[in-house]
């Protein structure tokens, strides 16, 4: 009862302040950007360096067949300015290490655009190198995938990939699938088990792909920040002290703050998610994780604010935490950047979970596991914040 009346009072105050509207306004802006400025269709910026390790005539035959089907289109050759460079390449299977050294030069490569045969979409740009060394060197310098395409005795095509060394397995598997999608690729060449496992992989279009990042940004970061803003507004007005001399407990006060944040976040995230995703996401899971994670980050905000008298003193901690929470967004957009340490940042699993939720084939286990982790962490932080607040009320 006290909790509910406190909640309504806090909502009333929030509705009369500007933080609430900032968040809503922000959500609307993001939605407009998503709908107007982000093209749903993915304009592929993927590049691929290929070397065909086969007789010239056979190579031309293979390429010509693709062109006839509409899968490849020859465009203007591309010039690459190559730097003088030296590096090592390690074969993952044999462990052999080979050293390469190159001089600076300019290489011109035959360039093709690859199209998706089903949709007719541009998939990526492929550059055909004349020798394997050039291909390896280009892949290294441009930080892109390189591959040697060969034909075995049975006439089956096989690929040997040159990766940067930090890609995830999932990413490497995705490479196989991209090739597998071209119908004339012989299935035997890519018969690895991962392929069948990931065979029904579903991807999000550009616009949809932005939704998890925006939701996590609005929920966690804004929740964390705004709860602190609210606490410092109250500290400024001294109303926490007035609250402390009533029979009501501090935890109720703190909980109503997180409830206000959760309400705001539910509203702002819905503004973004519903128009973009429609009915596709599992909204029960979506709101469950949204509310739990917002609670966790708001509790973190409460905990941090219990250490500082004023928001300016808290600013350093606030800044560092906000930046740290944003780093996993890089990994989200750059699949090849996925170091292990990044997984310990709470927004990393949160982004992945949100992505899982808005996709059709949600990995329920992953989402529920992390929902439980966030709930546990949130409760722990909340208890700590409550404990700290009880100790730090001053006259």
């Amino acid at each position, binding site marked *: 009862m*006290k909790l509910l009346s406190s909640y309504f009072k806090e909502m*009333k105050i929030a509705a009369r302040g500007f933080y609430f509207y900032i968040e809503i306004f922000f959500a609307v802006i993001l939605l407009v950007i998503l709908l107007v400025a982000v093209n749903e269709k993915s304009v592929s910026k993927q590049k691929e360096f290929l070397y065909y390790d086969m007789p010239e005539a056979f190579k031309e035959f293979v390429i010509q067949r693709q062109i006839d089907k509409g899968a490849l289109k020859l465009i203007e050759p591309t010039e690459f300015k190559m730097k003088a460079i030296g590096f090592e390449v390690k074969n993952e299977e044999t462990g052999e290490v080979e050293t390469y050294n190159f001089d600076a030069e300019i290489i011109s490569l035959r360039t093709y655009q690859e199209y998706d045969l089903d949709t007719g979409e541009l998939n990526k740009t492929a550059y055909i190198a004349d020798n394997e060394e050039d291909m390896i060197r280009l892949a290294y310098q441009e930080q892109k995938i390189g591959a040697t395409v060969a034909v075995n005795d049975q006439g089956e095509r096989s690929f040997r990939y040159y990766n940067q060394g930090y890609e995830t397995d999932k990413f490497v598997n995705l490479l196989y699938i991209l090739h597998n999608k071209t119908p004339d690729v012989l299935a035997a060449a890519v018969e690895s088990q991962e392929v069948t496992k990931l065979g029904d992989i579903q991807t999000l279009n550009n616009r949809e792909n932005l939704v998890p990042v925006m939701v996590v940004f609005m929920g966690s970061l804004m929740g964390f920040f705004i709860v602190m803003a609210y606490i410092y507004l109250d500290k400024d007005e001294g109303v926490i002290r*007035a609250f*402390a*001399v*009533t029979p009501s*407990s501090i935890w109720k006060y703190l909980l109503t703050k997180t409830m206000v944040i959760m309400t705001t976040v539910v509203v702002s995230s819905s503004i973004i998610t519903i128009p973009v995703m429609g009915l596709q996401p599992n909204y029960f899971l979506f709101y469950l994780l949204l509310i739990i994670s917002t609670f966790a980050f708001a509790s973190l905000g409460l905990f941090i604010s219990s250490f500082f008298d004023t928001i300016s003193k808290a600013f350093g901690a606030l800044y560092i935490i906000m930046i740290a929470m944003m780093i996993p967004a890089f990994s989200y957009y750059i699949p090849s950047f996925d170091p292990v340490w990044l997984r310990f940042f709470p927004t990393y699993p949160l982004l992945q979970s949100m992505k899982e939720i808005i996709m059709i084939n949600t990995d329920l286990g992953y989402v529920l596991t992390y929902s439980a982790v966030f709930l546990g962490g949130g409760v722990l932080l909340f208890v700590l914040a409550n404990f700290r607040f009880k100790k730090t*009320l001053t*006259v």
Partner: protein
Amino acid sequence: MISVKNLSHSYSHDDKLAVNNISFEIEKGETFGFLGPSGAGKSTTQGILTGLLKQQEGEVIVAGYNVKKVQNERFNKIGVSFEQSNVYSKLTAKENLDYYAKLFDVPTRDSMELLHLVGLDGKENDRAGEFSKGMKHRLTFARSMLNNPELWFLDEPTTGLDPAIAATIKDIIREQAAKGTTSFLTTHNMYIADELCDRVAFIIDGEIKLIDTPKNLKLQYGRKLIDIEYIENGKVVKETLKTVTEEDRRRIGEIVNNHDIQTMHSKEATLEEIFIQVTGRELV
């Protein structure tokens, strides 16, 4: 109602004491004045008694509860009026009171009645953020009465208010005292203490110098003075004499018996003069 034994407090947790080994008892129904200059430790003591500050040394029992233990229900019996007003500026005067009332488990007073009492009627639907300092202070004061407190903490209840409003506040405090409310009143205004308090404590540098009723203090320390003007040899002579010393009293008798008295006024030493006399310090 309040029992304090050997209470000490240091904000820096060292030997720099804001409150130094103080002890006192407050009876039920008493209005107890805590007097001292700025920085004496008044608000610190009140902070400990109301549980806002963690108690460090000594033993404090307030309204039957040991303040060391966290028992929030004790606040059903307690009202606190803060030195610095602290109300929600985004809420109206009435909303501030109505919301606060909901936090108690006991019957509360009508918010409109309280607003009327402190002269804020007509302002009930204005946001507290638009209030003047004095109005906010009155709202904070009114809020402290919501739960009909048995024990009432008043930190500088009239400071910064204009005389007419201060008089209203004083009347309210007197009225509550008549109803049996126990009050712990903190002030550096001796007149307020004199007018309202049954007993006063003089506190300075965190130490209590003495505790007594204003009347006793005046009897004990107040040199009751008499100004006499009389005619001697055709001229008006003026003398100021103390009523407490034997010598002066004989002299008064002498003058009255032998001279023509023009005027004769007695005047009382103020509590402020007594404070200076006892502590050697001014009340700033």
